[in-house]
């Protein structure tokens, strides 16, 4: 069975992602406390809690509207840098997928490319500057490569997941240029970027959800 997600499915993923984020409170908080101001988990967690609370509405929306609503909700409920960035990211996805009736494997590449571009623009960052896009960027590369080399959907999703996780881990050696870690003496070198870690968790959750979906 090949992947095809409805709004209802995407909301199921959101619920899973929210649970994952909720369970990582201490870890993510500590990461942001080390190089930032310690609030990244409360920000992102409250955003996903808000999404869960409007899940029933979201599930009934067309794909494009759903993504837009997710973006607006995150923008107003997450706050901080990540609110603006996630908000911009989802709104960009909404524009790109506005005529979609479902999400297929090819759309996943679109989703993450749009997010990447939107965050880059809004945050004035490039890959390699120790931010959340450093979890997205390797995932996109894998998706492109997988498309060319004709991997199976499941293989593709697994590779995407691992690339995102590795990407987040690689932020440890990067110097921050934007965001709070920049204020540190060592520009955060030696520490993981909290935004990249949470982003990698979301990508991994999404991959897992999709794999479950096609494995049924």
């Amino acid at each position: 069975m090949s992947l095809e997600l409805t709004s209802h499915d995407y909301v199921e993923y959101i619920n899973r992602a929210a649970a994952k984020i909720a369970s990582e409170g201490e870890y993510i908080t500590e990461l942001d406390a080390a190089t930032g101001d310690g609030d990244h988990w409360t920000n992102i967690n409250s955003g996903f809690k808000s999404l869960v609370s409007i899940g029933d509405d979201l599930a009934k929306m067309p794909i494009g509207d759903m993504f837009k609503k997710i973006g607006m909700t995150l923008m107003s409920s997450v706050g901080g840098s990540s609110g603006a960035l996630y908000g911009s990211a989802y709104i960009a996805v909404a524009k790109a997928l506005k005529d979609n009736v479902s999400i297929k494997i090819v759309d996943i590449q679109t989703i993450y490319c749009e997010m990447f571009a939107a965050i880059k623009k809004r945050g004035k960052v490039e890959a390699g500057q120790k931010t959340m896009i450093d979890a997205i960027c390797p995932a996109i590369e894998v998706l492109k490569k997988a498309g060319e080399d004709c991997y199976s959907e499941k293989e593709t999703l697994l590779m995407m997941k691992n690339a995102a996780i590795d990407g987040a881990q690689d932020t440890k050696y990067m110097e921050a240029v934007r965001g709070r870690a920049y204020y540190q003496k060592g520009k955060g070198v030696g520490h993981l970027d909290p935004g990249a870690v949470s982003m990698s968790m979301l990508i991994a959750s999404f991959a897992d959800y999709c794999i479950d979906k096609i494995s049924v």
Partner: protein
Amino acid sequence: MKKIINSPETVVEDMLRGIVAANPQLALAEGMSVIYRKEMSKKVGLVSGGGSGHEPAHAGYVGRGMLDAAVSGNVFSSPDPERILEAIKRADSGKGVLLIIKNYSGDCMNFTMAQELAEMEDIEVDYVIVRDDVAVEDSLHSTGRRGIAGTVFVHKICGAMAETGGSLEQVKAVAEKTIANVRSIGMALSSCTIPAIGKPGFALAEDEMEIGMGIHGEPGVGRCKIMPAKELAEVMLDRIIRDFDKDGGIGGEVSLMVNGYGATPLMELFILNAEVGNILHEKGVTIYKTYVGNYMTALDMAGSSITLLRMDEELKSLLDAVVDTPALKGGA
């Protein structure tokens, strides 16, 4: 965590209620975390804001001679564009609105997004970004310097300029002039505790302090042993003065703010002020006006920041103009 709160989730909401309860001349845009003057002024509107936890900033500076509206995010988190737009609307009397942004990624993004939204509604909006913290290298290709206590000087001076009927352009120009002439440096004796997290963001040993601390409990640039106030004043001033040196020097006359970070009592701020004053005096620098108190805090962090503003005649008269806000009053 020991705090006088109802619950970590409601601190901002509860606090804003407390601010308007104490200041009947101000109103709260319910659900929007925007505090604004009940009586709208016929002048360029001034809006500031950011994460909460910096009280009295920014709502404490709303009133005659300073801001028209202040917007609060969650603790240390930038407010979202929708709320900022609400503040812009509350401040706009048709003469345009200036946003005074402290330089943090989150604030810059959310405020400029709000500007875009406001322009879509035909409100003229411009902004300035305060970047006074010399602990951080300045640069155009990075986040650059943080905005800290120097922001209060920008509020005061822009407020006075707007009150005299200055145009948006003029108010922005004097804001930029203030920003170009203001420098700050902070230090902390302890971390602060974000209510939703419930424990201190970092730990400092019983005999340690941190220099270059921002106002969110972000780690500073150097940890060292605690030192006497005199030495501390030297170390902090030295960083500010060396920075001024890259840009024409400290000059002959400055205004001074010795700001508390929240848990440091006035006694200690006055002691620091005495030492800062001595050093400036020895260097032949005149102090035009001194502010000692809690102006831009970081929750319950113990510590303080020093801000110097190079003065000229225009800035003097604007700094002297009468204000009437919860946190600054009279010919402050």
